């Protein structure tokens, strides 16, 4: 009668009951079970990567607690300014307005580059297009080119998918590819990279932009349903794909960018140790495994300087 399954069920039930009781109890006794915890908030492009780095770190350092939340680069930087997180993830640089605001509030950001991303332009796998120039990508997302036939495709209205204004990817693309002009008002603003991928997979005339780490599924293969476009710097340049690691490392791929973390002042304690882990050989190996790219020597030297 008391077999393994019943035992497991009872264990689960008791577990649930104990946890609820503990939760209730610890609410009344806030000092109970004090473990050091840091909060990392920000970039959706980075959230998956940083969560996995954090889990690896916590596995090696039981007693450390790292909470990794998303919300977009803007949310992360805001949280650092508002004092509601310890580390901000952001996939774009600080805006001047944000730096001014930070200084006003007594926040002195220290910035670390922990990985490199190749911003990828994706279309539906059935789309005949293979390559675009940077200028064309800008035109499309500014809403100047509205139909695929202009680019040699079907006579179909281009269906635009993008992020919301709190996204570092949104801001980065706007600055470096749209030349600081407004996005088309027709862009469907999705909540995260995952939604964009899902949408483009189902939308034959869709086009979107995502961080390179999202192109791969959990087995390391490129996801089905989407086609990753090759990008040319201009009409005469050769085209490169963000899947081509060599092209990204040698800066031949046109739209790559560092992924940053910022702290308020010099990081200390758990935050500093975690950043050190991310920059270590092991951390960078995880970065590569997740589809992103290791940071180069120059950036690494700057990082080490900022740690001091």
């Amino acid at each position, binding site marked *: 009668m008391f077999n393994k399954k019943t035992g497991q069920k009872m264990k689960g039930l008791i577990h649930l009951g104990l946890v609820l009781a503990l939760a209730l109890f610890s609410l009344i006794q806030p000092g109970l079970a004090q473990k050091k915890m840091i909060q990392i908030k920000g970039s959706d492009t980075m959230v998956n990567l940083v969560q996995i780095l954090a889990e690896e770190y916590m596995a090696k350092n039981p007693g450390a607690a790292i909470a990794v939340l998303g919300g977009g680069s803007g949310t992360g930087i805001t949280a650092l300014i508002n004092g509601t997180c310890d580390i901000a993830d952001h996939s774009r640089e600080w805006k001047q307005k944000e730096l001014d605001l930070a200084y006003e509030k007594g926040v002195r950001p220290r910035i670390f580059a922990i990985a490199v991303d190749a911003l990828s332009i994706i279309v539906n796998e059935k789309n005949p297009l293979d390559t675009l120039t940077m200028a064309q990508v800008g035109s499309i997302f500014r809403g100047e080119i509205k139909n695929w036939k202009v680019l040699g495709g079907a006579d179909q209205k281009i269906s635009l998918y993008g992020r919301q204004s*709190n996204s570092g990817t949104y801001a980065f693309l706007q600055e470096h590819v749209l030349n600081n002009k407004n996005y088309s008002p027709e862009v*469907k603003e999705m909540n995260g990279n995952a939604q964009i991928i899902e949408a483009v997979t189902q939308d034959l005339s869709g086009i979107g932009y995502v961080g390179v780490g999202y192109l791969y599924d959990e087995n390391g293969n490129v996801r089905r349903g989407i086609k990753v476009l090759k990008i040319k710097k201009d009409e005469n340049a050769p085209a490169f794909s963000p899947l081509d690691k060599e092209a990204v490392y040698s800066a031949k791929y046109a739209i790559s960018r560092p992924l940053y973390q910022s702290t308020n002042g010099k990081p200390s304690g758990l935050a500093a140790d975690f950043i050190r882990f991310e920059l270590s050989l092991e951390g960078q190996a995880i970065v590569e495994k997740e589809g992103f790219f290791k940071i180069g020597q120059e950036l690494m030297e700057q990082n080490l300087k900022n740690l001091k």
Partner: protein
Amino acid sequence: MHSIKKKGFGRDLKESFIKNVFKISGLLTILTLLGIFALLLYTAVPAFREIDLKEFFTSTRWDPTSPEKPEYGLLSMLVSSLLVTAGALLLAFPVGLAVAAYLSDVAKPKTREIFKPIIELLAAIPSVVIGFIGITLIGPLIARVFKMSHGLTALNGSLLLAIMALPTIISISEDALRAVPQSYAEASLAVGANHWQTLIRVKIPAAKSGIIAAFMLGMGRAIGETMTVLMATGNARSFPHGFLQSVRTLTANIAIELGEVPYFTTHYYALFALGLVLFVLTFIINLTADLIMEKQKRKLQ
């Protein structure tokens, strides 16, 4: 004599104290409503140090983070909210009224007892679940039916909001129909009309005020809904040109941007200004419904 007086006085004091405790709880509701309005106003006003009032109400572009020219115009979002709401009511009002009529006039008491909890169950489904269904079920359905590439449109929002507004419209319309005095119906049947004609020509007109109130409260519910539209309508900034377009409502916009905005910046204040607009809008709708229902109550007395 002296001791009895003293006892009475002490007791009165205690009674009066208890009454005031309860009274304060009641007054708290007024305080909360005023407090919400006041705090919204207080936080929204600083926005207009930098934002032009005319631009705020007449511009169709809301792009506070634009590197070219930040703009704070709510018109596109307001129209989007109204569009989605209108679509929802177009569907929910007739269906809701029909269900209310069924429950009040056709269904046997036992059937009513079964259906009422079912409708309450519909009302209990959280908005985030409805929004989820919009993404996974209704959206793709719309895409298939209309041969579009995706379903995250105003139509999606309207269909879902209709489902959410239905319970409100049903319950208030039903109350209104049942409040019609029996004598009205009996008189109608006595002159030879059947139940259907009685319903259409006598009961519904008699319950007119309550039904209008139901409509307005359903409208209020739809305009104020956040999660459903946030998840299901695509959130494109453009001015809406039809139901098969992606739209961005006032509520969804606040939810999108509140997380990323540093406290006490113009953008932050501007979001509270949007909140104030929403508050005033729903307040007017609810107040109107209230006045209509009060008039009805007085009429039937």
